[in-house]
């Protein structure tokens, strides 16, 4: 059931809603920005595994009696490094290995949280996120992270493209491929860890993958692709939140549904362009 327009506009005057809209803008933009490279690097499934592992990090924080966010960032970064090494050195297909990692992380985390009886009521909040609960401090953190990721991608653009194209070619052009790959997964892990509160464990990979894939379908150059992925992410974040307020539906899933619509639109645009004449 949708809200009447007047009530909907009234809702936008509440600070929590304004913060949520800003969080949607920032997390969507950040997901699209980093996702543009993650998708080219075929790390979509990796971001999913990172999201699930974040829950394990939170449960570790609860177990140790430490503020979960403080544990989450180092845990996610360390987890990303270990899994990246495991994927590289193991002789198993990476999708199978990542499946083992993310499903077992999720299972262990849920069991630990239930046993501790802590956060039991808010498990759903962790799985799907609660963007309406973000604070101004969270927003400042996200804005700083967005600026840092933007600078990182701008400065390492050549290396990011060459590593995505061919690692041998990248090495021959002086790119420290191993270092670049590890640094990227650590940055991805930190972004995932800090976005969990707003986006949730189950939906975080959609924020990274869907806007980037939509942009990839319709971009005419790399110069267009990365900003477009970020803009689609930001646009979907805001639109999804407005839709969630209008229809009184959970915010995270609404954003992902809007992202799906954007992807379908991109597919349509792409197929129109491919039609002869």
């Amino acid at each position: 059931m949708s809200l009447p327009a007047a009530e909907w506009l009234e809702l936008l005057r509440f600070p929590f809603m304004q913060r949520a809209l800003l969080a949607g803008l920032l997390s969507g933009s950040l997901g699209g920005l980093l996702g543009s490279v993650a998708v080219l690097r075929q790390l979509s499934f990796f971001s999913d595994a990172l999201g699930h592992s974040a829950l394990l990090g939170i449960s570790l924080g609860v177990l140790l009696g430490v503020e979960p966010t403080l544990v989450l960032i180092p845990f996610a970064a360390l987890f990303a490094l270990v899994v990246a090494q495991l994927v590289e050195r193991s002789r198993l297909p990476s999708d199978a290995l990542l499946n083992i990692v993310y499903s077992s992380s999720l299972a262990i985390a849920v069991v630990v949280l239930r046993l501790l009886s802590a956060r039991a009521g808010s498990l759903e909040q962790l799985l799907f996120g609660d963007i309406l609960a973000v604070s101004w401090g969270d927003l400042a953190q996200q804005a700083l992270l967005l600026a840092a990721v933007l600078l990182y991608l701008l400065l390492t653009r050549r290396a990011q493209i060459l590593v995505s194209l061919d690692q041998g070619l990248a090495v021959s052009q002086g790119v420290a491929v191993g270092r670049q790959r590890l640094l990227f997964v650590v940055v991805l892990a930190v972004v995932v860890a800090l976005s969990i509160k707003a986006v949730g464990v189950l939906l975080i990979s959609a924020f990274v993958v869907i806007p980037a894939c939509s942009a990839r379908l319709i971009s005419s150059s790399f110069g267009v692709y990365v900003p477009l992925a970020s803009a689609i992410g930001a646009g979907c974040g805001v639109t999804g939140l407005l839709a969630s307020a209008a229809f009184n539906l959970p915010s995270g899933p609404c954003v992902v549904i809007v992202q799906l619509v954007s992807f379908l639109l991109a597919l349509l645009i792409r197929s129109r362009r491919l039609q002869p004449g």
Partner: protein
Amino acid sequence: MLTTVPTPAGVPVPLTETGSDPWPQTVLEVDGLTVGWGATAVERPAVENVSFRLAAETDTALVGPNGAGKSTLVQAVLGILPRQAGTVRVLGAPLSPSGRLPAAVRAQVAYLPQQLTVDGRFPLTVAEAVGLGWEPSGLRLPWAGRRGRGAAVRVALERTGCADLADRLISELSTGQWKRVLLAFCLVRPRQLLVLDEAQAGLDPQAADQFLRLLFDLRRSEGWAVLQISHDLEMVRRTCDRVLCLNRSLRCQGSPEIALSPAQLERLYGRGYVPYHHHHSRP
């Protein structure tokens, strides 16, 4: 005159021509290079104790049967694969054990991999791809040196006949077009060493001919030292100055007349070897 060294099997084979100094400027110097990985790396490395030198402005072919270690050798020389033993020097600078070279030396080297498969739609235009070859390594904002890069990219694309492809996405190119674009990538800044891993792979005879003609002309005009892996011995015979014959270890090196003699080929490929070649129009 030829010098000889014992092979692992103990049979002496010609190694290098001697006489007047054939190395006016050594671009690449490989000494005792051994490369291997996995459980059998020590007992049976993929490439064992290989030594050779590449002079400036020469075209050297690396030939040998499938599985002889040709790609492994060039990748170790470029620092893509780690080495077990030996040294590699590019323009006098040693390649570090982790495969690093000074940035100024690295900028003088270009590499065309055997297959560069772009998975799905890759949103990178030909002009953007060639521009990556112009940029030095290290941290740099994308708009730094934009004007100089644009001019260099235009010239490189024109010289390789790719000017009309500038705005096309690299994932939409045919294999032949992609190879020419990679040559433009090499050409976009001055280089001294160009390493090609089976540049003709995936090309039909006509496209292979066009590519080789272009490579031949550019090599002459740019003064590149070229090291190329090839299975086309007829082309090697006609266009290369020197040949390295590899089958895990270097079995022979010298001019095409010597290294590709029937006796050497039989030793390299085995009895009953039938040479493969395209019918080239030129060069």
